């Protein structure tokens, strides 16, 4: 595949900002309800015609790379295509319900929320699910607050949370934000939890162990049942980071492995938009014993219909109302459309695609057998340079130099949505970039709209947008 990204520039200046294309000062009628000192008499706005505006945004979109153009195999981030029918469902005017309406008048809305609680509980092997947290990381934080409330309710003062060194950075942050000390757990030679180190780390101070399974290298934690027993024997709880649930969907359930709390990354697993790009959702499931601590409100079904209620010892609210409702609608629609067979098929293809891709690349993959993602190594070549060169072959590169367990790591997760031709394109990009000359790697990318970024200058002298705006004053 030959690739040349669109590039709109004059004298090497990119497509200008709207405010650089035109700035027209218009008088504003400031007579209104706001006090005079809070209003302006004139505004400077870009006065552009619709075609000017349409071309501006279309050009920007053509200078961009997105999952609608090609694969985006960022390991541990799971960037997969979101089917557009879920957008149609969320855009249905009937989905626009004011959150303060009485339960009696929004039975359909509550029924959907209840249905999603049930779907997710069933998928994760959990007993109760809150839909309120607005992102995966917020779900983690909520889950840890629930663990804390549980221990406190038993007058059991615990101070530590154990986290593998290869875990997602958010795990450490969630534990620290909840006031816990973090105990870091090394990996064993196979890339899994080091059981001896775990045994040494567990104590009566252990509030919880946070794990993702399969782990960050895509490896299944085979000792999970023993791990659960060790943590539970010490009075601790087992937390499941749902980041890698895609590998297990419809085949194995965290609840059955002994996990007590889990969050679901609905953007990774159920194809809703990523939280960073707008409102997200990170539901949290728990076992029966912890259900009373979940955030309020939850939805339950009674003889009189659906109603919202506050769990008995709720930790309170972590977001307004029921959470980001329209994101939840999309997750529900996706699960309902796929069904049991479709979800199981998604995990099969996620694992098959990762394994097929790995078999087609010339880079070594030191750890396995892996599931939905793998950490290849670029050996004595710089992983970031190989990644930048991959851009020239028309694909987005994988996550680089993480996890640190693999030197020059290229953590790759093609996801279930790619077909064979697309995986072959990816493999070609890997192999061609890996085999290219040092010079080609050091000067890449050369075919993208933006060329090699000066990372040092960018980090040392950031041009913050509020300062940039201030320049115009």
């Amino acid at each position: 595949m030959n690739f040349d990204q669109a590039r709109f520039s004059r004298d090497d200046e990119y497509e200008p900002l709207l405010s650089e294309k035109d700035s027209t000062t218009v008088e504003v009628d400031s007579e209104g309800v706001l006090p005079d000192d809070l209003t302006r008499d004139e505004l400077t706005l870009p006065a552009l015609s619709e075609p000017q505006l349409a071309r501006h945004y279309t050009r920007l979109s053509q200078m961009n790379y997105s999952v609608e153009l090609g694969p985006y195999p960022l390991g541990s981030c799971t960037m997969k295509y979101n089917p557009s029918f879920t957008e149609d469902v969320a855009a249905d005017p009937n989905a626009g319900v004011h959150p303060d309406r009485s339960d009696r008048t929004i039975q359909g809305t509550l029924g959907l929320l209840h249905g999603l609680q049930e779907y997710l509980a069933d998928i994760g092997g959990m007993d109760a699910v809150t839909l309120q947290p607005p992102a995966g990381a917020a779900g983690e934080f909520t889950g840890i607050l629930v663990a804390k409330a549980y221990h406190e309710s038993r007058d059991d003062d615990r101070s530590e949370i154990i986290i593998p060194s290869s875990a997602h950075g958010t795990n450490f942050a969630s534990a620290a934000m909840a006031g816990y000390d973090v105990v870091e757990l090394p990996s064993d030679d196979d890339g899994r939890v080091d059981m001896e180190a775990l045994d040494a780390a567990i104590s009566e101070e252990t509030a919880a162990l946070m794990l993702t399974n399969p782990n960050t290298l895509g490896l299944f934690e085979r000792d999970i049942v023993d791990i659960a027993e060790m943590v539970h024997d010490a009075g601790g709880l087992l937390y499941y980071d749902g980041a890698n649930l895609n590998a297990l969907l419809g085949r194995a359930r965290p609840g059955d492995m002994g996990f007590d709390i889990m969050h679901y990354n609905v953007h990774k697993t159920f194809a809703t938009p990523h939280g960073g790009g707008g409102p997200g959702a990170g539901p949290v499931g728990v076992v029966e014993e912890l259900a009373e601590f979940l955030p309020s409100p939850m939805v339950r079904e009674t003889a009189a219909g659906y109603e919202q209620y506050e769990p008995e010892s709720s930790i309170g609210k972590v977001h307004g109302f029921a959470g980001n409702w329209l994101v939840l609608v999309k997750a529900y629609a996706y699960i309902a459309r796929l069904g049991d067979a479709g979800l199981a098929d998604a995990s099969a293809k996620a694992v098959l695609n990762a394994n097929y891709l790995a078999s087609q690349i010339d880079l070594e993959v030191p750890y396995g057998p892996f599931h939905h993602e793998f950490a290849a190594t670029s050996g004595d070549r710089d992983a970031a340079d190989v990644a930048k060169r991959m851009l020239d072959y028309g694909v987005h590169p994988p996550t680089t130099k993480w996890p640190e367990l693999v030197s020059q790591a290229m953590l790759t997760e093609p996801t279930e949505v790619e077909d064979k031709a697309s995986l072959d394109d990816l493999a070609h990009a890997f192999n061609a970039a890996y085999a290219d000359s040092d010079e080609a790697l050091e000067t890449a990318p050369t075919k993208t709209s933006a060329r090699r970024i000066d990372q040092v200058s960018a980090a040392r002298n950031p041009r913050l947008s509020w300062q940039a705006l201030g320049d115009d004053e």
Partner: protein
Amino acid sequence: MFEIPDDRKYLESHEWTTTEGDAVKIGISDFAQDELGDVVFVELPAEGDELAAGEEFGVVESIKAVSDLYAPVSGTVTAVNEELFDAPELLNDDPYGDGWMLELEPADESEFDDLLSPEEYREQTE
């Protein structure tokens, strides 16, 4: 070969400290700055803070990595090199001179005996 001056002592984690006078200077080694690559951000304690030997006292961030900094000996911070906040590249350009990080009034001089000599540190980096 990396520069390892003979007039100071070292930690396995690549910090150095001078050993003479009421206040000693602390920084990171030439080897450390080379491994880190271009440094873009430094976080240091405030004047008057108490540090314990082996305790984390700050963070250094490069485009490649973020690393914790460890105190070679216990003591009270008497000065902080604030120039590093605006010009973190001093750590790359002159790690033993203008790239110093802290001045510390040592609490227990015997702690210097636990640190690596220049020869021992040289062996570690080879």
